[in-house]
């Protein structure tokens, strides 16, 4: 050992880390819950705004197509709604955004769906930037990050399809477009059709000059990568060692991108809280313990004035919530070093967002924030939640008329036994 000691240890550490981030797409349950959360938040928002969609994003919104055109000329934000000022184009885009959100929620051809989801989110939000709030902002960011993740490894139609294909012998099945699993064909007929349709749409929009150079490169790269992954998987079923190795390298790259972006998502959530906390510490109202009193008296954020005034009337309560909020937000990133402390704070923040949803009338903002927080939920809890949901679903199905004692659906992706989480270890991994 001697001089070699620390070097060897560092080398071993690096190689262990390297094999972790290349061999697996980490956090399958966490990324799945983030996917489901943001898919649901955006889907519910779009459905809720259905009667108001024209006023928000339509060509004749008060923030009219012409006004949006002039602003977007100065900042180059991406939105397909600027391609045409016709009403039918707007309606189509809105419907596609709804469909993409639903597809992301259930994990149907997820890799393609997340791209379309991002197009929908960016197009609508960038079309009318002044209609949004903090909730829209976090959905905007996460929509872009989700594109790079393998977020359908569990709790998705893709995962179910992959599992069934494995059950059939695997080789020629209708495998998951997302699976980091064994060699198999990817996406099946549906995937090929989707890919062809996307290719045609991309070609049309590129020729028509719909994309800036950067966005054109991005979408074409995405499209090429999806095609390559399908082809490589197909070839690897019967191919030689070289093809199999190529397939493995692709798999490694996908894991790498997933893990990198998962880290970015976690850092982004920490930044949201820590910067919010740091700014608050500088505010006199957060210092004198009255800050929370004021939103309770703002006309735009008091759907239940009686309830808000009840809370606002209690000085001790306001003080505790005010100080508690700042303490939680500033402390959150550091509690990630300790599993138990992290989970306590996470619970606290989720509860706070639930009360914001009701008290301030911001349900979609709160849902989006909770979906972002969910990236830090422990695997044991998520697995338990998944099992409860499946059980409830099964019971509901039996209660439905004609449900009968049908053979139950294969439970979506659960390990045979509850995984044992090591008592210690970095909290952010759990």
């Amino acid at each position, binding site marked *: 050992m001697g001089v070699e000691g620390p070097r060897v240890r560092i080398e071993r550490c690096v190689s262990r880390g390297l*094999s972790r*981030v*290349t*061999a*697996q797409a980490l*956090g*399958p*349950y966490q990324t799945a819950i983030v996917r489901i959360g943001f898919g649901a938040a955006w889907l519910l928002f779009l459905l809720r*705004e259905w009667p108001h969609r024209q006023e928000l994003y339509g060509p*004749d919104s*008060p*923030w*009219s197509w012409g*006004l949006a055109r*002039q*602003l977007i000329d100065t*900042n*180059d934000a991406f939105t397909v709604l600027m391609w045409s*000022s016709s009403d039918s184009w707007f309606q189509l885009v809105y419907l596609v955004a709804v469909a993409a959100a639903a597809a992301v929620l259930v994990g149907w051809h997820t890799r393609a769906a997340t791209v379309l989801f991002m197009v929908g989110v960016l197009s609508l939000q960038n079309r009318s930037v*002044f209609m*949004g709030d*903090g909730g829209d902002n976090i959905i*905007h*960011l996460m929509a872009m990050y989700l594109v790079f993740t393998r977020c359908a490894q*569990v709790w998705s139609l893709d995962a179910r399809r992959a599992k069934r294909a494995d059950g059939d012998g695997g080789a020629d099945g209708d495998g998951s477009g997302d*699976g*980091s*699993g064994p*060699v198999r064909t990817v996406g099946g007929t549906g995937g090929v059709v989707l890919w062809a349709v996307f290719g045609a749409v991309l070609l049309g929009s590129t020729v028509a000059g719909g994309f800036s150079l950067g966005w054109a490169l991005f979408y074409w790269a995405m499209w090429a990568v999806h095609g390559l992954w399908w082809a490589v998987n197909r070839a690897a079923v019967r191919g030689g060692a070289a093809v199999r*190795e190529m397939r*493995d*390298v692709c*798999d*490694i*790259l996908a894991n*790498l991108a997933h893990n*990198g972006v998962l880290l*970015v998502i976690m850092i982004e959530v920490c*930044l949201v809280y820590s910067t919010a906390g740091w700014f*608050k510490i*500088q*505010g006199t109202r957060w210092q004198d313990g009255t*800050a929370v*009193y*004021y*939103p309770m008296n703002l*006309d*735009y954020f008091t*759907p239940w*004035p009686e309830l808000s005034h009840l809370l606002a009337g209690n*000085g001790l309560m*306001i003080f505790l919530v005010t100080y508690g909020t700042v303490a939680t937000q500033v402390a959150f990133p550091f509690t990630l070093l300790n599993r138990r402390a992290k989970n306590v704070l996470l619970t606290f923040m989720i509860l706070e967002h639930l009360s914001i949803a009701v008290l301030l*009338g911001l349900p979609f903002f709160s849902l989006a924030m909770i979906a972002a927080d969910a990236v830090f939920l422990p*695997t044991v809890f998520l697995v338990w939640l998944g099992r409860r949901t499946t059980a409830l679903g099964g019971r509901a199905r039996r209660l439905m008329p004609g449900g009968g004692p049908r053979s139950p659906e294969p439970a979506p*992706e*659960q*390990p045979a036994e509850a*995984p*044992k*989480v090591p008592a210690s270890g970095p909290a952010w991994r759990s």
Partner: protein
Amino acid sequence: MEPAAHQAPGGEGMRGIAALSLPARIFVAISVAVVTVGIAFHVAMVFLQTAPDNTISKRHGELVDSYVYPEFERNWKLFAPNPLQQNVAVHARATVAKPDGDTETTGWINLTAMDGEAIHGNPAPSHTQQNELRRAWEFYVDNHDEKGKPLGLRGRLSEQYIKRIVMLRFGPELNGGSVERIQVRSVITPVAPPEWSDERADVKPRYAVQPWWQVTSADLPGGGK
């Protein structure tokens, strides 16, 4: 997130880097480096955009802005450093031309109060009620000087936006006449300090009246393209 959980979603196919050939290993190594640098850069940019102005963000402001805007921007400051401590209401009135040739000036109509009514008792208020007028007015105020003169393109855009919001809510006909000109004003009412504190503050509303604006067909619903 222990190995067992990973194995479930499909782990058998993983062979790891150790089993790869040398060229493949070099390729993966380069990719790891690229991804690492990319993430570090991205996080640095996003951090500098959200953090308060500091030595580094001042020096590299242009780079940060060109990377972060428009898609990676993060901007919500509703409650920091201090929460909003005043209710901002937007009122509007109009002069209307009657069929008999007379013109008449209407009373002030509180548009914000209409939003408030829609939000009251509503578990999921629409963005049209909660954000539209509120954020349009912020946009307007940010891009006008104290005398109500527009500052640059954004100033002009915000003015037409406000006009279009007002006309959407008024409609082309008001009090039996067609709307010719409109005027808006803001009424800022500070939230009274809590009863349980010994703080006293002036809660008299402050008015800021904007100039009269001629209404054109571009300001009416249907004239937006």
